[in-house]
């Protein structure tokens, strides 16, 4: 039987559908953003409520902080060394290689240490959190917690969020210190830059405000990594493949969000914290 032509739609309805389709990705993005904010708010609402379960916080800190330490330190040393190498070669053209420490230090403190250490944490701990919670979700362990009158937000999510916000700045600071050691080693020991000049210019250029800016950023990055990891794990579905997809999304979304939010955070912090930045 011929079903006949489809019913005619008005011009206005066609335009509305087209506009709706065009903006669908934006609406979806806002929807996801809203979901993350709700997860964060609902989890933080459990913060002042008993029982506090300090062991869960310590365990999360150990996993995110101590567990990520070796890779953060390794990457930190070589990042500092390569930055120092490039800076020495660039500044040597003007006989200013003693500035390598100061300029590298500033770049490390404000940008590279918080961003790179957060990316390391995203790749290791963010992925781990998404996998662990995703597996717990599909094997009904999260439902089991709820059935035993234990809030999964309080038991699983909140300790990871707090641990992320506590550990990320510490890792960033350690990244920065080790990177400066790498830079010093490269510049002074390998490239024979004068030790006194190196230290003097580093002290001149690098301020505590720079380090504070980097640590403030790290707090936000730590929250981003753990929140996205928890969200992807908590909403996993579809068996092992679903958990795998959630883990991939956790790493990709965390990394992209860190880099995008870094721009906006830098802009805000430069305006707020620096006395003479030239930023208008």
């Amino acid at each position, binding site marked *: 039987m011929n079903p006949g032509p489809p019913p005619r739609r008005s011009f206005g309805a066609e335009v509305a559908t087209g506009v709706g389709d065009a903006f669908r990705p934006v609406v979806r993005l806002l929807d996801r953003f809203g979901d993350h904010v709700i997860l964060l708010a609902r989890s933080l609402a459990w913060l002042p409520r008993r029982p506090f379960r300090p062991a869960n916080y310590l365990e999360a800190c150990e996993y995110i902080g101590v567990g990520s330490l070796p890779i953060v330190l390794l990457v930190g040393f070589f990042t500092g060394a390569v930055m120092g190498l490039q800076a020495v070669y660039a500044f040597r053209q003007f006989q200013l290689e003693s500035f390598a420490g100061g300029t590298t230090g500033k770049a490390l403190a404000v940008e590279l240490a918080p961003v790179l250490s957060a990316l390391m944490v995203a790749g290791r701990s963010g992925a781990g959190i998404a996998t662990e919670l995703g597996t717990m979700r599909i094997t009904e*362990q999260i439902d089991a917690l709820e*059935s*035993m*009158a234990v*809030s999964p937000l309080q038991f699983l999510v909140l300790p990871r969020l707090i641990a992320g916000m506590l550990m990320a700045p510490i890792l960033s600071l350690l990244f920065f210190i080790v990177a400066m050691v790498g830079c010093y080693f490269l510049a002074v020991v390998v490239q024979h830059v004068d030790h006194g000049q190196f230290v003097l210019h580093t002290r001149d250029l690098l301020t505590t405000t720079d380090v504070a800016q980097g640590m403030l950023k790290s707090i936000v990055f730590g929250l981003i990594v753990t929140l996205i990891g928890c969200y992807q794990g908590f909403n996993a579905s579809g068996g092992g493949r679903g958990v795998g997809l959630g883990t991939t999304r956790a790493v990709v979304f965390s990394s992209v969000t860190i880099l995008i939010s870094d721009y906006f955070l830098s802009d805000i912090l430069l305006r707020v914290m620096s006395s003479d930045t030239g930023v208008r």
Partner: protein
Amino acid sequence: MSDADDAPLARAHPRWHLRVRGLTKSFGAKVVLDKLDLDVERGKVNVIIGASGAGKSVLIKHFMCLLRPDRGAIWVDGTDVFALATQPLSVFRRKFGLVFQFSALFDSLTVEENCAFPLREHTKKSKAEIKDIVRDRLAALGLDGMQAMYPGSLSGGQRKRVGLARALVLEPEILIFDEPTTGLDPLATRNVDDMILGVMERYKVTSVVISHDMASVFRIADRIAMLHERQILVAGTVDEIRGSDIPYLYEFIRTSGVAAAGAAP
């Protein structure tokens, strides 16, 4: 269809431990439960049967407010489950013990730690007391000596037993079994049935069992309710269900091979 026709509805009833009225639940456009009524008898094994995907697990998740309905109400001893605030709900959930289809044991904890978990969370008992209670529950289910093992090294039947032991440690009033015999061989199925009956005899709880294994259902059930097309199609005693001439129910039992073989409870 409900098996309780008393009007007006008594929310707290000496016979009915849990009462469901007008429960409607949708996921997106898919309506899973539609104005469903059900009564669960106190101190008995109440089995809910139905085809896979009929919404049985969704229904039991509403009992302890793991899911919230679009409409409808559930009363447990007169308490309106969905009207409870966070803290009272947390206390209320301790009335229930839920045994999951695949046990849902915490795989990072040992058998003993799994069973001790609810006690550590909700009581102020000492470590020694908790250890004693856990040993008692495990021994009652034939699991003594397995305290230090991890769930990954247990068989399917053992995992079910550990799941039940964990559900029993807080001495719940209502035990819920989500498809307890799925994936088990006939002997293990018989063991799980005996385990459920043993628990009923020893702890005098109300049980709700979800199943579509009719041989097992007729062995353990005091009452049976059939979930079909988003509602309770029929509910009654085992004899009433066996004698029912409702075509879908008759076909459901006949194709399971139980009625045709003339299996006795």
